[in-house]
């Protein structure tokens, strides 16, 4: 029986990883400056920051995997007792997998889809311990899969990555990193592609691995995940470390203004707007839709008023996108009724002038705009559809760009020259150009940084106020719900499991699924009707989220 557990931390005094003065330079200047990091065996240290902060580059540098063309230097780079500062490629190869290992995002693309799980897990052993073969190798694979709590390891080892569910896949990926017993594990956004409930369990696994004596470096943009798993946190911004300390302390009382902005960008109070009376602008009753055998939406009812936002939240496969498309009128429900402005509403009736009253901002900013057209032309086309005469279109385009916070010069650019946030603003502008009464947005800000997200949501709220828009907002992010929505609909497997005002649902969730979601998002519910704001109270070490 081969030894599964690595030697206890106390026996390896210089295990773990120590970095001092790490510097990565690119062609246009330094990308990472003066980063210090120390992770002892048994510790989990998180590196947080927005995209472009240099977290992933730092992670790659720890494995000697910085992209070609970048120069990496450090005053101290000590990996499990080995001085890695001047290692050539063969030297790095000896370290990788054996002393330090990497877990990336999304096992579906991070594991070789053409190889069985068992072969992937066995590979580090084959590379670094070639004497382990045959039965001994199979036993090692089985033991490693058991270590990551993968049920039925013998069966799973013979399967391919696409045959496993997201959570099991990620565990298999972690197993393939641990197979050769590395002392250091670098996890780069390991749970970002997972559903929240699954994410929580994988995070607990990472915590357990750290407790077993591995030094874990956890890179993430997700502060709730970080708080669940990390002992200490290192905050990076623009290539530098701006703050470091114990996780709870830093997140509860950040000192650096950037860190404070980071924490504030993901912790919002729910909206508190006055309710609207009168008949709803859109009313849906008993909507259902199936695709072949798969039931996407099952008996969903909702109501939307002018000037108010309804958020629809759910995990992947919950039916929220199908519901949104039915509301817009591009998909016809199999059963149920839709009424818009007190008249029946469906794909056939959504034509001509009526078509313009309900608009959609799609999920993917990269596909939503015609890549061959300039921004100005795309928006002019929308105005043409709204009946604006040719002469006035240019001025209207400039005005609309201003309304979504883009400079008038953007009219001459093509989508390939825009960032994700800019494209999304253009998509929103296009939807608004035809002056709709109801705006449906399908995950419009998910692919964006937290600060960009906040700005766009801010602008959406203002546009809503100016135009008295009704909004249906599909999202998976509960913090976005808090920023933008008055009411929320929680969906699971095509059904509505809970609905109501955001404040009520967040403080008193009744359905277990809602409770699970809130817990995974790190939102502490308080009976009594108020939601706890971390800045008001001191942290309590005994609480669990």
């Amino acid at each position, binding site marked *: 029986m081969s030894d599964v557990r690595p030697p206890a931390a106390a026996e390896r005094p210089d295990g773990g990883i120590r970095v001092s003065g790490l510097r990565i330079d690119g062609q246009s200047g330094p990308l990472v400056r003066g980063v210090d990091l120390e992770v002892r065996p048994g510790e989990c240290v998180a590196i947080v920051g927005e995209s472009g902060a240099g977290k992933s580059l730092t992670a790659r540098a720890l*494995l000697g995997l910085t992209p070609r063309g970048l120069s990496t230097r450090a005053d101290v780079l000590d990996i499990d007792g080995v001085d890695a500062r001047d290692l050539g490629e063969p030297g790095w190869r000896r370290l990788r997998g054996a002393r330090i290992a*990497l877990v990336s995002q999304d096992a579906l693309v991070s594991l070789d889809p*053409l190889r069985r799980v068992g072969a992937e897990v066995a590979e580090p052993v084959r590379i670094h311990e070639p004497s382990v073969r045959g039965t001994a190798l199979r036993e090692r694979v089985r033991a490693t899969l058991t270590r990551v709590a993968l049920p039925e390891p013998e069966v799973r080892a013979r399967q391919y990555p696409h045959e496993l569910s997201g959570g099991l896949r990620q565990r298999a990926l972690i197993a393939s*990193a641990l197979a050769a017993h590395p002392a250091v594990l670098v996890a780069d956004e390991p749970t970002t592609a997972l559903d929240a409930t699954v994410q929580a369990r994988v995070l607990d696994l990472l915590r357990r691995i750290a407790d077993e004596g591995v030094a874990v470096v956890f890179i993430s943009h997700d502060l709730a995940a970080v708080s669940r798993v990390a002992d200490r946190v290192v905050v990076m911004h623009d290539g530098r470390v701006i703050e470091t300390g114990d996780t709870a302390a830093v997140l509860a009382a950040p000192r650096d203004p950037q860190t404070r902005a980071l924490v504030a960008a993901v912790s919002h109070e729910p909206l508190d707007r006055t309710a609207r009376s009168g008949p709803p602008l859109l009313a849906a009753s008993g909507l259902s839709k199936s695709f072949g055998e798969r039931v996407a939406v099952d008996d969903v009812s909702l109501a939307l008023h002018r000037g108010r936002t309804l958020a629809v939240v759910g995990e992947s496969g919950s039916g929220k996108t199908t519901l949104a498309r039915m509301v817009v009128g591009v998909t016809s429900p199999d059963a149920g009724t839709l009424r818009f402005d007190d008249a029946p509403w469906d794909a056939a009736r959504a034509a001509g002038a009526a078509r313009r009253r309900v608009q959609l901002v799609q999920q993917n900013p990269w596909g939503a705009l015609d890549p061959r057209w300039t921004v100005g032309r795309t928006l002019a086309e929308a105005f043409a559809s709204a009946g604006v005469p040719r002469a006035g279109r240019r001025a209207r385009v400039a005005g609309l760009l201003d309304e979504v916070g883009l400079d008038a010069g953007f009219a001459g650019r093509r989508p390939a020259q825009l960032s994700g946030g800019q494209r999304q603003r253009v998509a929103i502008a296009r939807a608004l150009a035809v002056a709709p009464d109801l705006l449906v947005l399908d995950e419009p800000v998910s692919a964006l940084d937290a600060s960009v997200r906040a700005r766009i949501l801010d602008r959406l709220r203002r546009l809503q106020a100016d135009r008295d828009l009704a909004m249906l907002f599909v999202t998976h992010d509960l913090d976005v719900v808090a920023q933008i929505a008055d009411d929320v609909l929680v969906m699971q497997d095509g059904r509505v499991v809970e609905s109501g005002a955001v404040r009520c649902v967040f403080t008193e969730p009744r359905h277990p699924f809602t409770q699970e979601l809130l817990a995974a998002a790190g939102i502490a519910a308080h009976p009594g009707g108020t939601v706890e704001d971390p800045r008001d109270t001191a942290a309590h070490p005994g609480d669990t989220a």
Partner: protein
Amino acid sequence: MPRPRGSARRLLARLGGIAASVVLVLCGAATLAFIAFRIIPGDPVEVMLGPQAQVSDAVKAGIRSDLGLDRPLLEQYGAFLGQLVRGDLGESYQLRLPVVEVIGRQLGSTLQLTGAALAVALVLALASVLLGRGRTARTVLAGIELVVLSSPVFWTGLVLLSVFSFQLGWFPVSGARDPAAIVLPAVTLALPVAALLAQVLRDGVEAAEREPFLTTVRARGATPLRESVHHTLRHASVGGLTLAAYLVGSLLGGAVLVETVFARPGIGRVTLAAISDRDLPVITGVILFSALVFVVVNTVVDLVVPVLDPRLRRAPSAIGRRAAVPA
């Protein structure tokens, strides 16, 4: 895991589907050939005899009825299909021999040539992909492959013949008996196929290297050789395999040209003679032979690809699936 009974039934259904496709394609090709010959202007008997022939109308009528060309169209079609089912492709107008025999006699030589060329092409392509790893090497190889693909295969054959046979005398000029005589023709035929295959494989390897899973492989401490052999080549070969039918077709078409250049016996000679003599049964036979090759190769590819790429195992095989057009 599917239960044994279910998988056996699925296997039978699949085999049945494949057989049905084979029959359909062959019938389709045969019908197309039949129709094509009947709609082209000109009386086949006159074309056969040539413009100079001084033959009386009665003799022509006799030949026509001999060949069954005076009976109603549908009857001819029925007879044609009936013959096909029995494996009888009719008789060559010119040689008065069964078409099957005419083609069959020359088939061996062509198969030898294409087989050797395929082997050489595989070796060259793999060498190019595995050995050309640096950026400059890749650019140079890509340039060479572009030139090779742009050169007419009959010209490269002539150049090779000129240099290696005439000037240097390393290889015999012609002669089917001498084993060394197959080297130059095989290499000539292999070059464009190797170039195309190398291009497709290299594109596949480069695409695979950009995939995230390769970062994971590198992070395990794998050497570049391990990366290629155990990971990227497998991904690239799926792309290469879907081109197999096209590559085999390339070999067949090229064989006609190469056999002409090097004066080798084979299907090329048969086809060319048949074309200039307007020997319709032989031409039909060649068309059907090409269709058969196409079907066989595609079936093999359809069976092998799911073995390589497990993600495709659920999807039903489509005989018409083809990778992006190579260019």
